């Protein structure tokens, strides 16, 4: 299927790959923010995941070890944030920004010897039967494991948040921390775990850039994906399926504008390059105009269990 010189199958397939890092980081951050914490360190955790994942994948030649180590690295970095903000009561905004700086610097330092090396890549998993469907098969059911994992993760998070006890407690803590505390829920402990979850998914998201999308290590290669993830969470009104929609929209326009550049459309390159950001924001703002979507009531408010 080719429209205006662009193959739609390749486009959709590329879109899912291009959106996966942002999607993974954003779904984790959505959980963090649902618990009432604003972690602006997503970019730092992503780039750390990217470099650690790359190092382990190169040394073991097994990509999946890279992803596991990236998740652990992201979570460990987020523990730093969690300890500082939940126990030492440091300011969440400043600490999150600091975390991004630390991540960018640290990854540049430890990644230096690995520049210019090619990493092992993930093999594609063709889902039996489904991948044989014409058009749809190669489009959606012929990806690597992490792409499937990211979609399953979104579905799981959506289910857990809206349908389970754990999700209810998480929302309660983010909505009204004093009330949750009065009812006997461990506000700090729940937030700590949410922050670690966010760190792990950001780490995996980062590793997907260095192990699947690019696949090699370059300093600063996340290139603002963490910030996009943060923006997506807000514009998606903290709803998991909208995070997926936003991420795919963003990924789609990114791929599309590259294709348009390649076939030489008479639109200035600068405008094409900024289009993913503009379109994603416009669409999600449009959606959030309908209905009632406010931030979790206790978002970014420090909590200290006094009295």
């Amino acid at each position, binding site marked *: 299927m080719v429209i205006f010189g662009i193959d739609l199958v390749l486009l959709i397939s590329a879109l899912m790959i291009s959106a996966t890092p942002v999607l993974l980081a954003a779904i984790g951050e959505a959980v963090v923010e649902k618990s009432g914490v604003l972690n602006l360190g997503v970019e730092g955790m992503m780039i750390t995941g990217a470099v650690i994942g790359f190092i382990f994948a190169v040394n073991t030649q097994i990509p999946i070890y890279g992803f596991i180590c990236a998740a652990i690295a992201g979570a460990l970095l987020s523990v730093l944030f969690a300890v500082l903000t939940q126990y030492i009561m440091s300011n969440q905004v400043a600490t999150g920004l600091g975390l991004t700086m630390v991540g960018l610097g640290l990854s540049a330092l430890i990644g230096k010897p690995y520049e210019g090396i090619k990493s092992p890549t993930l093999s594609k998993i063709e889902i039996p039967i489904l991948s044989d469907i014409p058009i749809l098969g190669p489009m959606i059911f012929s990806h690597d494991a992490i792409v499937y994992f990211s979609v399953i993760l979104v579905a799981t998070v959506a289910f857990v948040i809206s349908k389970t006890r754990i999700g209810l407690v998480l*929302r*309660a803590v983010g909505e009204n921390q004093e009330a949750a505390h*009065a009812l006997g829920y461990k506000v700090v402990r729940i937030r700590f775990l949410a922050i670690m979850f966010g760190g792990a998914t950001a780490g995996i998201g980062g590793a997907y850039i260095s192990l699947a999308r690019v696949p090699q290590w370059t300093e600063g290669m996340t290139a603002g994906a963490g910030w996009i993830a943060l923006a997506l969470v807000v514009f998606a009104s903290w709803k998991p399926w909208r995070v997926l929609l936003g991420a795919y929209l963003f990924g789609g326009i990114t791929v599309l504008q590259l294709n348009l550049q390649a076939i030489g459309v008479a639109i200035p390159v600068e405008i094409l390059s900024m289009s993913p950001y503009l379109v994603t924001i416009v669409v999600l703002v449009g959606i959030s105009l309908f209905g009632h979507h406010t931030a979790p009531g206790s978002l970014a408010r420090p909590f200290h269990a006094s009295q």
Partner: protein
Amino acid sequence: MAEVLLQMDGISKSFPGVKANDEVSFQINSGEIHALLGENGAGKSTLVKMIYGLMQPDSGSMKLGSENFRPSEPSKARQSGIAMVFQHFSLFDALSVAENIALGMENPPRLQDLSEKIETVSKSYGLPLGPKRLVGQLSAGERQRVEIIRCLLQNPKLLIMDEPTSVLTPNEVKTLFETLLRLKGEGKSILYISHKLEEIREICDYATILRNGKKVGSCIPRDTSAKQIGEMMVGKSFSSPSRKTRAFGEELLKVSNLSIRTKDFFGTSLSNINFSVRVGEILGIGGVAGNGQDELLSALSGEEKTSPSTIKIFNQPIGKLAPDERRAIGMRAAPEERLGHAAAPAMTLIENTLITSHSEDVINQWGIIKFDNVKEKTRNIVSEFDVRTPTLDNAAASLSGGNLQKFVIGREILQKPRVFVVNQPTWGVDAAAAAFIRQSILNLASNDSAVVVISQDLDELFEICDTFSVLTNGRMSKSHDIRSLSSEDVGLLMGGSDLDRKSHDTA
């Protein structure tokens, strides 16, 4: 002789600088409604939090039935059959009724089953409640129902209620009391915390009175006068507010055709509000919070601007003026929410005084703050309104609710406003401080000011106001001479109907 359910023995609890509870002992029997009385800061909340497992006593012991009882966290207390209805801080606005209830239960059933259970239990106790509704859209009375149902579903032995009637309409109070008596009939015990002595005399079997963390007495409320109980609470006698004159001058504040669309998702829009207040008059506006009270206050304070002629002072249109400009011509307001609206929590009392002062009093010609003047003003407020604070440099948030309320009211009244608008002047304030605040409002009116008091507390309005109207669902009734109103009239007004049939003989 009824059996003892909960026995408290020599309970003490200290915080840095304060002894919140000092050797407190008392017992609650099965099937008893037991009142816990005391001023703000007497140690009632601390004591209750220890029973509910939110805090642990430093010394002393508790016994539940025949077993030693020392819950390390609320879930332990709930498992032992203790349930608590909080005054604030325990509902989640953005969650549904059923979700809110599930959060307060140890092993909640599936949401679907829980919803059915909520409907059955709430109907059987005469407290109807839709399980799918968002809590943020409920009235204060309905919100309390959520808490009560949450407790009842756990089948508790002891139900703790912290100031349950402070936000209810008279009818809701009646329903609540019926529920409480029914629970008592089922053999459950209730620990009832309140400032309202008449209520306690009506419903409680026994009362324990705390002052400064110590138990200072106990009594059978029915056999003791409210005055006696009140004196035990404060340790001295205090007088009810009174005023010298009730003569009104010309029309001072006039509001005509005031309509505002609320910007708050959970707020109420105002539609076509008309009233006027004369020199020396106190207009009381009753009704349950959430019916447009906050919106009315913000229109009068100037936070929300309207077309100029909607609000007039001495026939001068001021609807477009900002709060600061209104203060300059002598119109001041004290909103309900003390922390964050009336006062900046993290700023000192001195800085909070500065915020609403006339700029010419506190800022010199070069734009520099005259801190000596501000300090002097703050010192005046603190001494004249008996605000108890260690220093003037204490943050507003460090004061207790009652003290901060005295500060806020004092700050405005000492500026001698011509028009003063106040929302819930004595909410959560103890009896002595409330009497003092009411007296200062009366004195202000006697000094040729016009006052608008918005309050849910009908007793308060009847004590100090000259005229009375009700704000329901964003609409305001006609104002009536308060002395001409019977309690049925008030009920009708609260229900949203105007007393048209008799407005001609009271107007």
